[in-house]
């Protein structure tokens, strides 16, 4: 559906004084009134302070609503911009309420795309819009694969595979079986698969609700050889005595995490076990976790000093090399962008903080809407679940109309497709051909 009303946060993700949420599309005015629980008609450029409610009718915030009537808006559609308090939790609740009202979350670059397609942009801007969307979707793909809890993508994939096998069982009935009377068996098989996947959807949705996936901000991982001062740096940065600091190499055998906010960006700082060639059994586990953390990191702080080499062969998205213990060995020559600090004495930490911010801006330079991927995942799983439930209801009837069930399962698969790539009719037929003895 091309012109469905879309919603997303227009300001960067994180804590700030003000966050802006933008609604665009046919029902933007209607949904905005829904958020404020009023029904006064609005005029172009009207700006009013209104209360904001969640879908349960509880007041959560108040904000400035600005209304733009089509075509005189950024996208050329009806647009409402809501300025509320810059708390990610409030933003999340407003987005949720908008989705409840019938909006959907914007795709990366979608506002710009609509603006262009509605003739709100000059020709010369078109190329850059295309490139922008392409690069944004690359980032989105990157985030889908890596940053978001890998486990949820995997579970969604499992659900999709289950649905494809249910659908192919039905398509076998519709397209192949002709005179063989296998319908009854197929139906009970499909019910089994659907029930199973319904449970998977349920548990996935509750895991999203727990906010586990959502609340994790950028992951900054500190790595280095044993005793290079990782925990000291972590403590210095966090300003809290959370990691155990000692002189024996290999103290931090596990990863230690701490959430903090730097310049409005939510950050999860992760201290890891030291990486060295030889380690004992207890450490082995810790080192494995370190490798795992590096894989999920947005930014890696690679620590080294005058007497320890940096950890080599690391393949990460963004890396900052940090030379520690500068107080012990003052005139060390550093390569290019390496940052010189003493974690123990707190020198150079300002500079490191700046470098960290620059890197965060780089990693997080695309607009906020990519960051709500998990929210979009949750929406997808919820609509998938509702289609599964409809299918199950249809299958309970005495003589189930399986072609309608097929349609519902297809809809269910379609809701997962935006994350996992399009499912084509060939995918279904391939499954039919590979799973069933087909043909006269």
């Amino acid at each position: 559906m091309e012109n469905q009303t879309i919603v997303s946060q227009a300001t960067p993700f994180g804590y700030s004084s003000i966050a802006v949420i933008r609604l665009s599309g046919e029902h933007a005015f209607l949904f905005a009134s829904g958020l404020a629980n009023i029904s006064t008609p609005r005029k172009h450029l009207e700006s009013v302070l209104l209360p904001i409610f969640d879908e349960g009718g509880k007041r959560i915030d108040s904000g400035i609503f600005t209304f733009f009537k089509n075509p005189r808006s950024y996208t050329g559609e009806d647009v409402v911009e809501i300025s509320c308090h810059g708390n990610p939790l409030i933003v999340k609740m407003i987005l949720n309420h908008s989705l409840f009202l019938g909006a959907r979350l914007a795709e990366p670059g979608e506002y710009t795309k609509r603006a262009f397609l509605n003739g709100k942009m000059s020709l010369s801007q078109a190329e850059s819009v295309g490139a922008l969307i392409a690069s944004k979707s690359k980032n989105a793909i990157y985030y889908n694969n890596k940053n978001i809890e890998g486990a949820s993508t995997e579970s969604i994939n499992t659900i999709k595979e289950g649905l494809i096998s249910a659908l192919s069982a039905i398509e076998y009935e519709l397209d192949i079986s002709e005179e063989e009377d296998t319908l009854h068996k197929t139906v009970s098989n499909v019910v089994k698969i659907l029930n199973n996947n319904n449970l998977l959807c349920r548990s996935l949705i509750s895991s999203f609700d727990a906010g586990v996936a959502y609340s994790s901000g950028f992951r900054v991982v500190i790595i280095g050889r044993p005793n290079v001062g990782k925990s000291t740096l972590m403590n210095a940065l966090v300003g809290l005595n959370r990691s155990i600091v000692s002189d024996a190499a290999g103290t931090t055998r596990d990863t230690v995490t701490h959430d903090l906010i730097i310049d409005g960006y939510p950050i999860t700082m992760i201290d890891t076990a030291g990486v060295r060639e030889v380690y004992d059994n207890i450490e082995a586990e810790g080192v494995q976790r370190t490798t795992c953390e590096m894989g999920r990191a947005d930014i890696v702080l690679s620590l080294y000093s005058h007497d320890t080499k940096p950890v080599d062969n690391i393949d990460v998205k963004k890396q900052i090399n940090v030379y520690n213990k500068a107080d012990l060995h003052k005139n060390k020559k550093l390569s290019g962008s390496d940052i010189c600090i003493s974690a123990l004495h707190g020198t150079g930490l300002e500079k490191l903080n700046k470098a960290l911010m620059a890197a965060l801006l780089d990693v997080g330079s695309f607009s906020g809407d990519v960051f709500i991927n998990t929210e979009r995942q949750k929406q997808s799983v919820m609509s998938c679940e509702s289609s599964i439930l409809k299918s199950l209801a249809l299958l309970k009837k005495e003589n189930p109309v399986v072609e309608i069930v097929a349609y519902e399962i297809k809809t269910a698969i379609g809701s997962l497709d935006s994350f996992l790539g399009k499912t084509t009719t060939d995918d279904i037929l391939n499954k039919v051909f590979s799973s069933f003895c087909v043909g006269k």
Partner: protein
Amino acid sequence: MKHHRVDVVVVGGGHAGVEAALICDHYKIKTLLITMDPSAIGRMSCNPAIGGLAKGQMVREIDVLGGQMAATTDSSGIQFKILNKKKGRAVWSPRAQVDKRCYEKLVLEKIKKSSVEIITGEVVSLLYKKNRVAGVTLRSLEQIYSKTVILTAGTFLSGTIHIGERKINAGRMGEERAEGLTQHLESAGFKSGRLKTGTPPRLNRKSINWSKADLSLGDTNPVPFSYSTKTFNPTNEPCHTLYSNDESHQIIKKNRDRSPMFSGDIGGVGPRYCPSIEDKVFKFPDRDSHLLFLEPEWTNSDQIYLNGFSTSLPEETQIESLRVIPGLENVDFFRPGYAIEYDFFPPSQLKNTLETKDVSGLFFAGQMNGTSGYEEAAAQGLVCGINASLKVLGKEQLVLTRDSSYIGVMIDDLITKDTLEPYRMFTSRAEFRLALRYSNTPDRLLEKAVECGSIRKSLEDLLLSVIKQKQNMREGLGGSMAPDEIKKITHLKHSAPAKDVLKRNEVSIWDLPKRYLEYPPEHPAWLVNDTIYDVESDIKYEGYIKRCIVEMRSLRKNEKIKLQNDLNYGAIPGLSSEAIEKLSTIKPENLGQAMRVSGITPSDMAVLAIHAVKESVSRGTT
């Protein structure tokens, strides 16, 4: 040497060629049909049936678009059946067992009655004028000049038959193959490939112990394919079924190496949906039996088609593995099963009109486009014939979209997807399956048929009255039913529109008071039933159909955004390298087609959409 000058040359007299030639004749343009064997015109070379799952819907579409297959099937059918009756009304698919000899005879009569001229010969090359086709050259070196050419060569292009280790160069068993045309087309720039298909053995009725087989009959209230069929009292001749067993599977396994499928003698790819028995035995080792159908090839025929046992094993293995099946202990063959390999031309080289992208006026239809099946071939032949005629007459081409018909789905699939095996129609290929019912074919296609002038006036009038009747009934069903009337059929206390009552699960349209089901007396009983069921379907499926319509709209929007044939995809920033490669080969005509090319991601689509809109703005067109 005699010089011909015609409007259209149709090469081949199979199901594609016949439809093409007859529809061209309907347009009253000068039509020449060239065949290597005039006695084989309209021949059903494989199974003695027309229609079936998804194919039956296509035959109805052929009928509404002015084709002959439906009516001929009605006159030559010996058993009619609607398949999938229990599985939902959109997948109800009519199928008929057909008297092959009768079918062939009726087709030849139609051609002879028309002004289509038939000549015997083999086309070896084409004539061109710039990048337009200008005619054909026969093996006899005779040249025929023509404004358009439709090639429907079937399995004849470099056809090779395999039976075990035996190889025979032939287009069909006992018929010569065509040589040279593939090489000619390749030198003209067309890409070709190799496909394989197969056919089962034909058994002698007298050698079968029929008491061991199960009976399978058609419907007692048969429904014809064609709207123009007036008198319809077909026979209901029985088919029979048997099961293969483990013993016969063992024999097949033992002789596996002698099948050219496994020995590597066959390079062409065969259809997965119509696997040979040796394929089935190997792919599904858990199955200890496979269903086999015994189908008469014509009325009182001694020749029985063994459906489900397509094979290229040596003849003696075929006999040996069948004689261990109860009922076939003494079976004899009229002819063994065989596999055939043939040249095809990947259909991504065609436009959505089935005209080739590079040579104007040249059309391809049927198996040479990589499809299999009589119905698929006939549908393409018909579209080629209509478009060749419209081209000769200087009129706009007929394009069938995915939301209009199975034929539209097929053509779109052919031109946008990689052809890796012979293409067969399945209902699951149609994303708008719920809206593409055999019973609503006129609603979907009549307007198109009238617009392009392919339908006869008498049929047009009948179908208009059917559509009008449906409208009236739907309107009538908006009227309220009294509580008394409702009480008789469902638990509902207050009065309500009949439509809402009908939406309830337990209510059928036949339960409603007679006034809702009034019908013009001139329509035959089957058509009355058909129409009433279709109105019921529309109402029962209303919610789903509405969802389909929303999806259709977005599809249509993308179809309207044209892409230039010479578009340099490599120069569009942001396209993935896979997209660049695929789009450069397939050269989609519009954004909708591009979207369906395999390997194209949503991000590629966004980039391409913006590029296309930008292009059309800068060209000053929309």
